[in-house]
């Protein structure tokens, strides 16, 4: 029996799944790796530890779940978080830790380019918002602030490219992840010269561009031996976690949008061309030549609610953070729609879409003497979801979204799914799969093997769960509050900057 293995190099952990050819999970394991914050704005990971953790988990999964049952691994498909940057020397040895997507050290470079004449031209060709997360800006930062490393660098890789290089000896990056570097021209599918010039590098410093279905080369002999794998396994370059979560959620039609809310969140649509946003707020990631995943990411999400629970939750009876959050949710349901007038801006971690302001900060607004604890709970949840709505509203300027699908631990909480439906005034389908990234990677590999004719057909295999329908009345209430939410966010630009400077 054949099986497909998917490897997701996520923000905090590697998750490896094994699927049979019908898409049934045979086994899965994860391995955590740490993120280091040696200075404010720095967010780094050790590439060697990521590689070793991946190898260790893969070996355990093979030895415990695959080899004993005599499954034959047909292919291994990679996905990873976006925007990571790792400088290696000309022999492929890392010169320092990898910078993760959350690394904000390039914020001055971001300000510089956003104020320049280049901004429009680079967004037009790359379709990627100009934000410190972008590897283009991280390289520009390194050139200015760590010239030694910059000079020594033989290649600038993503974490996924490094892991694949370790396994097969090939330097490559797939189109979708290359989009996330901010340096791929999505029209010509080649590195964009203006972006490279800004970063200060030439194309030979970057890995080779390949389609998501491309073979990433043969597994090195030593790894074949230690993992017990044959040399005929296809290793797929694969894609990014965001693109795979979209595929895995089964959203592949242009009038549908998918909302993912885990610790952070994203709203995405799929279409056959780039969404050209005049304000440069929308990302466009290319999966195949005629298939774009477009949308907006938010720093806000379940992580913000967890923060609230840790600070204000009742731990006298709660066993752990989950049960504490559950009892908070219970309390929130007792408050009416709109929290009787408290608004919460969820920008505790700054914000990406739609305002793209790393200095944005959180606030509660409209508090009066009658408000009680439970109003704050509900307001916090509503605030997180207003932010999601504002991304949806931004996408709606480009696409007529008629229905929504939600996934991720926070969005699939029934209370939240209903609020999303009410806010958007649209039906919401809940996908319960906790692992849509891995399912997406499975569908990609299965399509490559010819099990599905196309990614469209693969996506249509995903079954949706319950459907939530909007309540017109609630929608009206939410819209009144959202108007204030939006104008507060827009008005506070200067104050955000001033308070962030003091912190």
């Amino acid at each position: 029996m054949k099986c497909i293995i998917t490897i997701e190099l996520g923000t905090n952990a590697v998750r490896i799944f094994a699927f049979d050819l019908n898409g049934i999970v045979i086994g899965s394991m994860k391995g955590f790796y740490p993120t280091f914050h040696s200075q404010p704005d720095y967010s780094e990971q050790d590439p060697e530890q990521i590689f070793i953790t991946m190898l260790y988990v893969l070996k355990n999964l093979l030895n415990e779940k695959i080899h004993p049952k005599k499954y034959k691994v047909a292919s291994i498909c990679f996905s990873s978080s976006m925007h990571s940057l790792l400088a290696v020397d000309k022999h492929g040895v890392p010169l320092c830790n990898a910078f993760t997507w959350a690394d904000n050290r390039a914020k001055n470079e971001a300000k510089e380019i956003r104020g320049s004449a280049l901004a429009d031209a680079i967004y037009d060709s790359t379709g990627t918002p100009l934000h410190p997360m972008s590897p283009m800006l991280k390289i520009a930062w390194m050139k200015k602030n760590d010239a030694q490393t910059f000079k020594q660098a033989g290649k600038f890789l993503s974490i996924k490219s490094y892991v694949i290089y370790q396994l097969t000896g090939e330097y490559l990056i797939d189109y979708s992840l290359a989009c996330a570097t901010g340096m791929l021209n999505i029209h010509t599918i080649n590195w964009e010269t203006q972006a490279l010039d800004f970063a200060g590098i030439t194309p030979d410093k970057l890995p080779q561009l390949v389609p998501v279905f491309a073979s990433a080369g043969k597994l090195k002999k030593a790894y074949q031996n230690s993992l017990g794998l044959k040399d005929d396994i296809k290793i797929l370059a694969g894609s990014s976690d965001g693109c795979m979560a979209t595929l895995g959620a089964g959203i592949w039609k242009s009038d549908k949008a998918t909302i993912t809310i885990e610790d952070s969140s994203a709203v995405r649509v799929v279409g056959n061309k780039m969404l050209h946003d005049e304000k440069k707020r929308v990302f466009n990631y290319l999966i195949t030549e005629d298939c774009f995943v477009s949308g907006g990411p938010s720093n806000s999400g379940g992580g913000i609610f967890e923060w609230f629970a840790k600070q204000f939750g009742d731990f006298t009876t709660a066993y752990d953070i989950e049960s504490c959050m559950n009892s908070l949710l219970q309390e929130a349901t007792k408050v009416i729609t709109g929290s009787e007038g408290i608004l919460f801006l969820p920008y505790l971690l700054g914000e990406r879409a739609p305002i793209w302001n790393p200095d944005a900060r959180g606030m509660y607004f409209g508090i009066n003497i009658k408000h009680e604890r439970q109003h704050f709970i509900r307001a916090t949840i509503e605030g997180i979801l207003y932010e999601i709505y504002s991304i949806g509203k931004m996408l709606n300027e480009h696409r007529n979204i008629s229905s929504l699908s939600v996934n991720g631990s926070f969005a699939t909480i029934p209370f939240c799914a209903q609020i999303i439906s009410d806010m958007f005034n649209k039906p919401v389908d809940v996908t319960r799969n906790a692992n849509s990234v891995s399912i997406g990677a499975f569908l990609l590999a299965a399509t490559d093997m010819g099990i599905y004719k196309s990614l469209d057909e693969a996506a249509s295999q995903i079954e949706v769960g319950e459907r939530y329908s909007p309540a017109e009345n609630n929608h009206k209430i939410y819209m009144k509050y959202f108007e204030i939410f939006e104008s507060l966010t827009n008005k506070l630009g200067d104050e955000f900057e001033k308070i962030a400077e003091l912190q």
Partner: protein
Amino acid sequence: MLQFLYQQGATSGLSQFPHILELSAKKNASIQLQSFPEQVVEGLCIYFINEGRFEWKINEQRHVLFPGDVVLILPGQKFGNEKGILDLGSITWVQIKIQKLESGELVPGKWSGMSDHESVAVGKLLSLNNNPVLSKLTDGGRILNSIAFEIHHHELGFVTRINQLIDELLITITRQLTKQNNPPRDFPKVFMNLEASLRKDLSHQWSVEEMAAIAGMGTTLFNERVKNFTGFTPINYLINIRISEAIKLLKKKEVSITDIALDTGFYSSQHFSTTFKKLTGYTPGEFRKNNSYHE
């Protein structure tokens, strides 16, 4: 309150306890100059504040102390009052001679009834600790009073009893400081603190007991939490860090493989080699050869 002062060598009473350098209770009713200057301490000092408010400088940091606080001063640290005076109030303290290993770690002596494993863990945690004040640890005062009672009365079995009480004091303090240093609701944070401690001292032969103690929990709960959070047992997670660091060193040519093995916490180069090969398919030597370049 009864005041007393036992000092090793100077007063009788401690002759059967060579590991106790000093045991004392003092009620200070008047301020005197040069009564409490900053000094480097020889043994491990444990103070309990009964009454009053004290301003002390411990290891170059200022602390204000209140009744119920236990203060822990490690051997070789400087401590006292900046102006040299002892504030009004009453305190009880004991100073214990504790073995300091070459590695800088502390180990309770032979008098202790703790198992080897536990005494290494307690010593490790005491030496890692950088907050000398444990607030509201009234148990500390109770145990010190019991020690004093035993010393005054010499009842049957008092030698054994006192040594047990010192063990109890050390254990109570160690447990409290791991609790105090760990936010109770935030396992990821607790784990990252532990992670940092492991990295700082990777060549140490960490036991699960020590790791669990740093995280402020029992080993059963600790194992379960770590497995849940990382996907690995604590020891396997540690192996991850060890191999990752070893790989970095292998890619630099200066360090010998034996040194790498010991620096990253393997028992021997043999142990390193086996573990490394099992995971990567390469021996460390082969790996180095594949990743070194002749320029």
